[in-house]
């Protein structure tokens, strides 16, 4: 009874540790912006801590660089279980625009298992709050993969082999494309 009550009351206070493994500092500023009174994330129990040993969540910013990959892995291993990793920004989600550089190994998920992705370059503070709220179960996620398939040919095909032996002039008109 008391355990359930405690889990309900203290279950969603995430202590975050922010690990920059070679980003441009843009995402760091947005993360710090989330902690300001304007977008006060401490009302959800989120608190920035200085050591990975105190943290529940690691906020990864920046790609996995050749020189920082080991440090990122060690910081992840120092966190106590259960632990979550958020990839914030397009560098941590996919490697950034310098993905093909010799120093960049790739996205943060190459080094540590990433649970939540917040794309953006940099993401707005609202986007970071939204991602954290999705993780905490406060809101439903909005994105879903979109697939568009054309079902009919926009232009009639011309088959020279079908025209053999007819002996008449056929004028092909361009059919209206779907959606116009």
């Amino acid at each position: 009874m008391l355990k359930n009550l405690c889990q309900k009351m203290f279950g969603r206070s995430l202590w975050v540790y922010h690990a920059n493994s070679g980003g441009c500092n843009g995402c760091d500023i947005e993360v710090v912006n989330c902690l300001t009174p304007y977008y006060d994330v401490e009302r959800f129990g989120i608190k920035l801590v200085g050591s990975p040993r105190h943290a529940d969540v690691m906020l990864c910013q920046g790609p996995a660089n050749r020189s920082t990959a080991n440090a990122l892995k060690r910081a992840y291993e120092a966190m106590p279980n259960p632990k979550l990793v958020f990839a914030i920004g397009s560098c941590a989600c996919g490697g950034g625009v310098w993905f093909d550089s010799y120093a960049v190994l790739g996205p943060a998920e190459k080094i540590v298992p990433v649970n939540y992705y917040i794309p953006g370059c940099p993401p707005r503070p609202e986007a970071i709050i939204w991602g954290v709220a999705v993780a905490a179960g406060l809101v439903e996620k909005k994105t879903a993969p979109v697939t568009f398939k054309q079902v009919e040919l926009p232009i009639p095909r011309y088959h020279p082999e079908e025209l053999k032996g007819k002996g008449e002039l056929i004028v092909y008109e361009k059919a209206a494309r779907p959606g116009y």
Partner: protein
Amino acid sequence: MSILSKLMEAQVCLEAGRVTMPYPFQPRTPPTTFRGRPIFDGKKCIGCAGCANNCPAREILVFDPCQEIRVLKYLGRRCTYCGRCADLCPEKAITMSGEFENGTNAIGDISQTIELFMSTCQRCGRCFDEPTEGKRNPLEKLKMKGYRFDDLKNERWIFRSQAYLEGQPVVDDIAIDLKD
């Protein structure tokens, strides 16, 4: 003195009132100049792949699985929302929306796929040959520096270049002497 300063501080805080926004529970619209996630309109797209060629993050893949079908896949992992694709699209099929609430637990959620029928040649009834990794069709031979072969399964962007390999001509039938 200290009590007086604390009281003055309290008065300043009371005058400011509440500044924290109730963000994740109430929607918030970004400014109109904000560039969010690009939205691909499959009904307007003609499959010219100009967006794929000009994406700085190489996040738009093009693949022709057969002669008449072209698949465009926007992955969005390391998209920096620069808006070059929307600026360049001749049909204005790409719009930079104001969507920023893209936090998700699976990175595939932000991908968009368009499957298009390509217009065929009115004389021969075909598009050009499908590109393959090993053999090169006449269209690819026309390209001077190399050719593109996107890997949709592994979501990779591949560009093979043979231009500056020593001892290899740039195009099969044109020999350019590199050592002058």
